[in-house]
């Protein structure tokens, strides 16, 4: 089947352009795109096609961009299916313009063997309309002692190895895992954090945490964790991605490591880009995430680093929690927020604030994550899979958490004013989500 998207505002992160244009999809792949003639007539002529032979979609000037590739999504199967299943996560992703979810292994039990990996792959194929790529744990049970069967797991489809928010504290274990992973060509994703300093913390140390009497961690703990990991990369030469860099102090170290030619990339979460520690206000547990929200200065530094490309990837860090886990005193409450559906609208806050333009946002949400995992998606070029999101960046509304498709409703954006929402999402050319307008 062939589809023409005409009169679109094409967001091309590869070319760095945001321009009117048309895009042609055939057989689930992008055939061509053209920014010289938004009506698509030139595109059809060049490919010897007639408008009445094919499906034509008039985008009416709305944005068409590569679908989001979201690294670090928690789907709670196996173990806590009541919080999020592959079905509900898939629907949420589709509604959020996320066409590929890269899932976390911090389930219970952890995804640390080819058998559990096979289970989640099967569940994902049956239930999720979006592409699902699983990550596996780096060490058994995420306990930081013995490495998993990296080779077997890669063959079973693991795209990266991570113990998620557990830091492998034993440097010897971690350096061996990095060395071994390198020999397999595996990507290791880590959570840079000095575990001793951050033990028990519920907030970032500073004026706010002091006033609220919350146990806090210095932002320095993130830099110390990153410094250690960078030293180990120099030792081992492994491919490494820092899941969340959230503080200004960690940025110079990251910059040096990249300049020294290490195979390192870094991500950050949408919450750290759009919220700060003061949002916690009167102990609002939906704002408890890990690492904790930072100061406004840190937030702006991280936004700038996304703009410059120093931070490569923006993730939702989608972490479903049920009401019971959140309706507790702040220290006891579970960390994490759902974000598959709010990732794009929240990211658009940065666009409306004129901090980042749309191609830059999609470079961080689609192109770079796809590149890091060696995927062909995340771009609008010919031959790429037709994973696309059509969205209106301007439409205003008030977020209602109970309207979310995730089973868990723990979003910090509840009742907040948002601007911009997804109109349609396509995976391999098929519409998997369409908003009734």
């Amino acid at each position: 089947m062939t589809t023409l998207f005409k009169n679109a505002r094409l967001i091309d992160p590869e070319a760095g352009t945001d321009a009117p244009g048309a895009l042609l999809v055939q057989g689930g792949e992008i055939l061509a795109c053209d920014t010289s003639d938004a009506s698509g007539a030139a595109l059809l002529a060049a490919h010897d096609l007639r408008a009445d032979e094919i499906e034509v979609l008039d985008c009416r000037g709305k944005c068409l961009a590569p679908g989001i590739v979201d690294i670090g999504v928690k789907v709670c199967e196996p173990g806590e299916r009541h919080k999020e299943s592959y079905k509900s996560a898939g629907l949420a992703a589709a509604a959020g313009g996320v066409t590929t979810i890269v899932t976390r292994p911090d389930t219970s039990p952890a995804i640390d063997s080819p058998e559990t990996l096979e289970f989640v792959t099967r569940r994902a194929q049956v239930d999720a309309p979006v592409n699902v790529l699983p990550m596996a744990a780096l060490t058994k049970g995420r306990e930081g002692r013995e490495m998993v069967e990296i080779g077997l797991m890669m063959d079973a489809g693991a795209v990266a190895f991570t113990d998620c928010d557990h830091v492998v504290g034993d440097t010897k274990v971690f350096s061996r895992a990095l060395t071994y992973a390198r020999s397999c060509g595996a990507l290791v994703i880590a959570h840079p954090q000095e575990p001793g300093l951050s033990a028990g913390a519920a907030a970032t140390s500073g004026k706010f945490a002091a006033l609220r009497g919350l146990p806090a961690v210095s932002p320095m703990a993130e830099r110390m964790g990153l410094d250690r990991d960078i030293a180990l990369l120099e030792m081992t030469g492994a491919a490494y991605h820092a899941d969340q860099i959230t503080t200004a102090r960690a940025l110079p170290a990251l910059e040096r490591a990249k300049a020294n030619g290490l195979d390192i990339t870094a991500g950050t979460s949408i919450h750290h880009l759009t919220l700060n520690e003061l949002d916690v206000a009167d102990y609002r547990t939906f704002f408890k995430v890990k690492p904790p929200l930072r100061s406004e200065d840190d937030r702006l530094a991280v936004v700038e680093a996304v703009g410059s490309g120093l931070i490569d990837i923006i993730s939702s860090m989608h972490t479903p929690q049920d009401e019971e886990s959140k309706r507790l005193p702040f220290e006891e409450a579970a960390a994490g927020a759902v974000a598959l559906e709010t990732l794009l609208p929240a990211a658009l806050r940065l666009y409306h604030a004129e901090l980042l333009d749309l191609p830059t946002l999609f470079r961080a949400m689609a192109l770079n994550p796809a590149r890091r995992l060696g995927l062909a998606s995340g771009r609008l070029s010919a031959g790429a899979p037709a994973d696309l999101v059509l969205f209106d960046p301007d439409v205003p509304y008030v977020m209602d958490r109970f309207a979310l498709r995730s089973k868990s409703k723990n979003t910090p954006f509840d009742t907040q004013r948002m601007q911009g929402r997804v109109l349609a999402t396509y995976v391999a050319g098929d519409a998997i989500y369409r908003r009734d307008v």
Partner: protein
Amino acid sequence: MQPPSFDQRHLLGIEPLRPHEITAILDLADDYVALNRQTEKHSEALAGLTQINMFFENSTRTQASFELAGKRLGADVMNMAMQASSIKKGETLIDTAMTLNAMHPDLLVVRHPHSGAVDLLSQKVNCAVLNAGDGRHEHPTQALLDALTIRRTKGRLHRLNIAICGDIAHSRVARSNLILLGKMENRIRLIGPPTLVPQQFAEFGAEIYDDMREGLKDVDVVMMLRLQKERMDGGFIPSEREYFYRYGLDAEKLALAKPDAIVMHPGPMNRGVEIDGQIADDIKRSVIQEQVEMGVAVRMAAMDLLARNLRNARAEAAG
């Protein structure tokens, strides 16, 4: 008596209070001090109301003080020792709140080991909630009783130099006092080892000293804090005796304060750790016994004011 301008539904902390509301509580507490010194110390201010004391953390003194305050005002008072009951059975704080709600209490006095827990509880119940200490956050009635003690001994509650000494980081008493005394326009010094004094408090206008001798110079009030046993194990300070040597209040260090400086302590004291026994017992300097007396009066005043607002709100709701 003039109707006091106290516009609060709960007493969750000092932070939400405005200076005139603090004064309203203290003024009424003065009346209750007088009542408490009579032989017949009964009032009917809370007659017919039910007060439940819910302590998720061990407490003898604060709980007794609240209980006595409620009884003197004619309330039906019930104590629930929560650390022994439902928490162990896995009941959440919200479930507990819903259960209590069904018993129709009018005043709920809560102490909880986690910061913010009393705020959370107050959102779920239909009565007035008094914070009797939440984690490291606030302990408003302690700050109010300290303020009343200072006002009665010093004759004023503004433009004083006040030193708060010891484990500031883990102390809700210190936080509430810092906020209250700041609102009333005093100069506050925080004195203690840097491992126990969050340096961020400098941003709230407090002066921070790690040399106690320097910090005590010319102060009007010396507030000592209790050093919890579990902090003494070498994690925050090297040892008990080193702490007493550097930060314990003895006659020599106290001599640096103003000659009429008073010494306060929220109790219970560790004699020989944060305070020398002789100073604690010196009736010319120590107002520690007065603090206990003021505690009952301040709690009576706070509950009385909240009960008036509760009755008014319910009368309005009933039309």
